[in-house]
């Protein structure tokens, strides 16, 4: 009897002291499709690994949801005259290799982003290398890094653990309980594979989705759909050779709700809820206008041609590379593009004369003056007076993410820049 009691007590003790079945640490696995490329601090649109940029390489400052600057690696920002800004660095920042972030590192990093930095009384004075380029927009693009043993290291909360052709693994430098500490970018050969693996549970975050494909993810218990405002607007850019009056007419005709409805699913565009002048879209008689499109813009191009009525001419749907060549050679009348629209300072990158993303060659001194002065409303107004194109649809960013993430938010600038703050339901 006593022995039985003793055994029972021992068993209770053993069972009571045994650790519960181990809970797998949460890993955020991001499904992407296409070549992963290399993760580098300088933006490479072709490399999908650049999704991880915001977590590895910090900016000097960031934007909040309203477009206001908030401190990043820079503790203080002071606007000087002209295109100059004075910065003071955060003193506690270190790169993932353990070294401190110095003003020399920042100056070198900014130079790669088209900016020059000179030391001045415990701070840095930053100005664009090309005086026509906007310092704000360039600073938003610039990421701070150092090269260590032939690799880029950043001062962000995550560091690269290893990379293969199809997978990039990152871990948080200082793990935080209840937050995402491990991230994997997994490159699948096709959209279908990325979707299938996400539905199977091999991946738990997928971004850059068209709204028509959301149906796949609705009702999947382990996933939630999230949306964020878009930074870019699908637009029809005009050849600068078209007269201003004609461009004004074209903009009015193409920004009409009916064009939007033809080209996009209902409620897909942020502009859908706004009022639109649908009754004044008649174009003056003239030569047929050739429409150039590429990639995802075939439907927008068709809707554009129909809106042009008798002036709708040849429609060419070509590769992105050919589109770029024809845009640079001005071999088009209208072309489908997706320019940055947010934050307002990004207008400087797209519509200022000679700006790096001004592929259609738009030039308007009034716009340039407003942009140089940082007067964004004036720049908007000047763009409306002499429109470079018709801004048709700003589409929301859509992603599907693990339901255990409590506060998944997209953007406001980089799609997944808030990921380090995401919390996991325990």
């Amino acid at each position, binding site marked *: 009897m006593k022995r039985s009691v003793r055994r029972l007590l021992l068993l209770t003790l053993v069972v009571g002291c045994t650790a519960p079945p181990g809970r797998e640490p949460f890993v955020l696995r991001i499904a992407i499709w296409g070549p992963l490329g290399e993760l580098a601090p300088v933006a490479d649109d072709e490399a999908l690994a650049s999704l991880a940029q915001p977590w590895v390489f910090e900016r000097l400052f960031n934007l909040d949801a309203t477009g206001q600057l908030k401190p990043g690696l820079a503790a203080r920002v002071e606007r000087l005259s002209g295109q100059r800004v004075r910065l003071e660095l955060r003193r506690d920042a270190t790169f993932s290799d353990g070294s401190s972030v110095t003003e020399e590192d920042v100056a070198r990093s900014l130079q790669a982003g088209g900016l020059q930095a000179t030391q001045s009384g415990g701070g840095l004075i930053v100005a664009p290398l090309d005086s026509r380029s906007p310092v704000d927009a360039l600073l938003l693009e610039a990421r701070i890094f150092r090269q260590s043993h032939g690799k880029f290291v950043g001062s962000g909360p995550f560091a690269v653990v290893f990379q293969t052709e199809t997978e990039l693994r990152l871990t948080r430098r200082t793990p935080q309980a209840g937050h995402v500490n491990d991230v994997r970018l997994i490159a699948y050969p096709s959209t279908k594979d990325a979707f299938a693996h996400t*539905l199977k549970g091999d991946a738990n975050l997928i971004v850059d989705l068209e709204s028509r494909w959301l149906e796949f993810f609705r*009702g999947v218990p382990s996933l939630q759909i999230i949306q964020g405002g878009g930074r870019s607007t699908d637009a029809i850019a005009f050849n600068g050779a078209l007269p201003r009056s004609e461009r004004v007419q074209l903009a009015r005709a193409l920004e009409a709700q009916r064009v939007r409805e033809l080209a996009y699913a209902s409620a897909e565009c942020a502009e859908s809820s706004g009022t639109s002048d649908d009754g004044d879209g008649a174009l003056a008689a003239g030569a047929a206008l050739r429409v150039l499109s590429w990639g995802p813009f075939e439907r927008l191009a068709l809707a554009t041609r129909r809106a042009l009525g008798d002036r709708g001419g040849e429609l060419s749907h070509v590769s992105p590379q050919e589109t770029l060549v024809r845009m640079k050679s001005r071999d088009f009348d209208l072309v489908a593009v997706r320019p940055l629209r947010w934050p307002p300072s990004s207008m400087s990158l797209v519509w200022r004369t000679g700006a790096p993303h001004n592929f259609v060659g738009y030039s308007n001194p009034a716009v340039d003056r407003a942009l140089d002065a940082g007067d964004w409303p004036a720049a908007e107004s000047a763009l409306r007076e002499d429109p470079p194109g018709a801004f048709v649809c700003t589409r929301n960013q859509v992603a599907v993410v693990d339901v255990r993430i409590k506060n998944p938010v997209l953007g406001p600038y980089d799609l997944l820049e808030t990921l380090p703050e995401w919390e996991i339901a325990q």
Partner: protein
Amino acid sequence: MTRQRIALLLAVLVAASGVLPVLILAVLGLQILRQRGERASQEALQAIAEQAAARIATYIAQQREMLRAVGMAVGNQPDAPRRLADVALDAPSLGKLRLVSAETPRGVTPALKPEQIAAALRGTEVASDTYMAELSPALDVCVPSGRPGSAFCTTLDLLELQRQVQRIRVGEKGYALAFDRTGKLLAAGSGAMRAAVLSRDPVAESPLAAALLTGTAAPARLRNGEGLDVLAGWAALPALGWTIAVEQPADEALRGARTALGLLALGAAVTLLLSMAVGYVLVRRMLAALELEERFRTAGKIAAGVTHDLGHRLTILRQIEQLAAMNDPDYLPRIRESLATEVGTLRRFVSDFSDLTREAKPQDFLPIELNTFADSVLAGAQGYASEANVALELQRAPSELWVSGDRYLLERAALNLTRNAIEASKPGSRVRLRVDRSDGQAMLAVEDQGAGIPADRIATLFDSFSSTKRSGVHLGMGLPNVRRIVAAHGGAISVKSKPGEGTTFRLSLPVNGPHSSSPSAPATMP
């Protein structure tokens, strides 16, 4: 058995006999309802599947009709290519319409076979099987263009159908599945199974879906791709090669019947408990009344016995008194002898009553060696046996045999049996006490060579006040008291008797293990 236990047993019996048949009938009824409910659920699922199949067939027919209309309207127009391109704006599901001729490179309609394209160019409408394009099902179709040697061909985007199937909901968890001719999923309402739509991996239903198109009936209840037990309704679209299954987890579909069963079980349990509680109270009252009546009856019997026996003794004492009143010294020895006898008789009378009041308490039991105990009994009865001219003998067990008990009470019981045996024996005969171990029990048998007990008496031998011996002090409490004592020791008493040959009473008691296995242990000796 205590009054409470009797009351409880009776209450359970009455309640069970009253409620259980009703319960069984109700369960049977509910089972029938459950089966009918299952059949009705399956029929509803079947109807939904057939409706979905009809909608799909209508949708495809409409798309093809629209394609034909476009072909008729645009076919001979000079700006046909532009108009065809514009069709994509108004009817996106029609895909990219192309005017196909013999010179058109392959790949415009990848799922159509060369002979189908040749037939289309001859003016015949042709269609491929459904296949998965990048992310949605698709169907290649060619319709006549109205121009010789050419046809309008396109890839119909069936995303809308996929959406329709995925949006079908039955209850909270029911969903629809669409399969192609090979049994691969084209659309899945179940989120967990949707990966198979893209991966093209087969699911549990795949072979059933493919077989349905060849006329094989699919089961209405099955284990689905998620491993759930589901009810299913099936519909086939042989022309399109699609199979539609509408499934609902069985536990959800049959929730109503299950709830009814649960409520019934609860109701039955409550009714049963209530019946038992009421029955218990009533039976206890009845038993109390019966017991009271029984006590009066017992008291009457005791009074009758006491009156009879004491009256007999009183008569003898009066005769002795009369003898004493004669003052005749010759009678003195007889008076003395008679008085001694009567005093002994009355002492036994008092002892018998005293035995009835003494309870056996297990906590007071002590180890008793049965051979030694039998010696003691033999010695106690020796005087009585000598008076009756009956020989007493003891047959001992081969080894020590230990039991545990109240020595006084056990001795009273054994002496009672021995005296009865002596009384039943003829002078010159023998009474034997036999100690033995039998079937793991310690046994003390008392055997006589008397006239035996009639068979009809044996059944009531141990009942109270049933003695037929009215010649002396025999209240009829002896044997019932022996049985009471033995039972209190966890033992039993039995009797075997053959008229003319004698009677054997056997007392069996539990062996007190450790003492029996180590009989020489002096520390435990009484």
